[in-house]
């Protein structure tokens, strides 16, 4: 079972992912596919949250691009595929593979923007988590950010 400590670390990524999803999904909403917003925002938020949890558990290092790039390489195309399967905008007309390949390329740009915003949100969120109660994973991560900032 996912603990409260891990879920707390997922919040900034969840917010950035959801924000990006709503941004894009909002476009399809006005194009007449009301499901579009939810079906893109939801997977992007979940994968964004997963990034935060992996940071807290150790395999990912804060502030480095490669882990974020590797996560979004499959996650972004899958999120778009989920959206297109439920609320199609016609992007799959050329076939699934070209669609996935294109989305994978865009995912690298998305990863830069995601990481950029995540790095802005995470330290201030960790300060709030520390003020609310004991979370050793969050404390460790915060210590890492403090070390980077003081350097």
């Amino acid at each position: 079972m996912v603990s409260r400590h891990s879920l707390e670390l997922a919040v900034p990524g969840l917010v950035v992912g959801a924000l990006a999803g709503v941004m894009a999904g909002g476009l399809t909403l006005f194009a007449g596919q009301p499901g579009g917003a939810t079906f893109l925002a939801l997977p992007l938020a979940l994968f964004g949250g997963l990034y935060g949890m992996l940071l807290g558990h150790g395999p990912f290092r804060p502030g480095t691009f490669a882990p974020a790039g590797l996560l979004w390489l499959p996650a972004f195309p899958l999120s778009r595929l989920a959206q297109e399967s439920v609320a199609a905008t016609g992007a799959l007309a050329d076939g699934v593979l070209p669609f996935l390949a294109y989305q994978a390329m865009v995912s690298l740009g998305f990863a830069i923007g995601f990481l950029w915003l995540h790095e802005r949100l995470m330290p201030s969120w960790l300060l709030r988590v520390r003020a609310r109660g004991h979370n050793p994973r969050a404390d460790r991560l915060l210590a890492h950010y403090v070390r980077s900032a003081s350097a």
Partner: protein
Amino acid sequence: MDTSETPVTTTPVEDKRVWKAGRLEPMPIRKLPDAPPSVHILGPTVFLVALGVGMGESYMWPRLVLLFGPEIRWLFLIGVTLQAVVMLEMARYAMATGESIFSGAARVFKPLMWFFFTVAILVYIWPGHLSAGAAAFEEITGIPWTVTAVTGLILVGVVFSLAKVIYNVLENLLSVLIGALVIGTAVIAAMVGSWADVVSTITGMFSIGYLPPEALSAAWFPVIVGACAFAGPSGMQQMWYTLHLRDSGAGMGAHIPRIRGLRHAGEEEAMPSRGFMFDTEDPAEMAKWRGWRRWVTFDALLLFWGITMLVTISFTVIAQAAARQNPGVRTAIQGDDREVALSAMADAVSSAGSSVLGVVFLGFIALIGLNATLGLFDSFSRGQADMTYNFVPGAKKLRMSHLYAGFLWGVIIFGILILLFGPADGPSGILDTLAFLSTFAMGAYCVTLLLVNNRMLPKPIRPRWWSNVIIGFGAVFYLGMLFYSLVAFGVVVG
């Protein structure tokens, strides 16, 4: 030129050792701080990205791709890659000394620094750069663009005057705006583009040497020269980056106090009249130096090169999708009127997706305008204040923060007056001269960089030969294209 090869050790006490560079005051030897422990994503490159991602990426290059095909993008690849190397070399001097490149130029030959001082005033006091973003905002909201531009100018002045440490405020603000821009353009490109668009855009970058006959005409060659100058940061933006590096405390910049907003000017520590140098004979110090170089190389490659490429590829894909949906875009974009072309692109984007998509497109143009304005006004004031403080006799009686505020409010008040009563881009009679100076400054800073880094720095930290070759190529690229356009077509920059 009185330039020693190694630091002159006069006594064993570290404080007494100095590095003599040029005829100006020698730099005391101090410890180089430790480089950030990991390749961290956030650095002062945020300013260069904010300044660099502008009309070149969102308008000029998508326009050229629609007109001449994606193969024309090889010139963009050269332009941005060249700028990434320029960025690394600008950082070399700033991080090694804590001085701006303007001070470096003065150490080589003082009139060189005054040349850049004058060019900055001539080129950057005109508020014309506000027009594209404010006009896009007018399309969305109906608020007249001059009202937005004047309000924006006053807001910029107030924010930078009230800030305790200007660098922190600006970095936070620009970071959020650029983050939103990058995620937004990626998401829009994901929605409207296709595999074929991105393949043609990327393969076009490797069609080295492609120039269709119509590109070599009096009508279009100057436009191509202008687009090359606007691939990444243009004009003096790279030189200003050295001031942001110093103020962020990168390398020896850690020994220089930070510039404060006018309201907190009294808290500013005394600004030293010269920078510092570290002991390049000490292996431990050189190891730290290599750490700083890794840090800035990561910034140059991923953040600067990567984001500039991403934004321009995204906008090109959007433009291609728009032209497919509405062939009228191609006709509109051929015209000289930037606002009409951007509006046509937004309309076509709307018809491709929804009306909201067009609004989002214009929103991003407005966002790019806001980023550029924030960065430009701060950088201009920072650069002029730096040169005035260090080289105008008597200026040290004032604090750097007062000089910064003086230039900031000077350019803001002049900008408001011109927006209300004059020609926003500058008097029409001198437009060609301003465009010439802006591109000429880029060739000139390449030459300056070669002189400063190869003559004013100790041998162990001077640039490698290949880096010198690339910067030398940059000087020939900018100056060569500029003068070819002038001689062959009688036109400066489009």
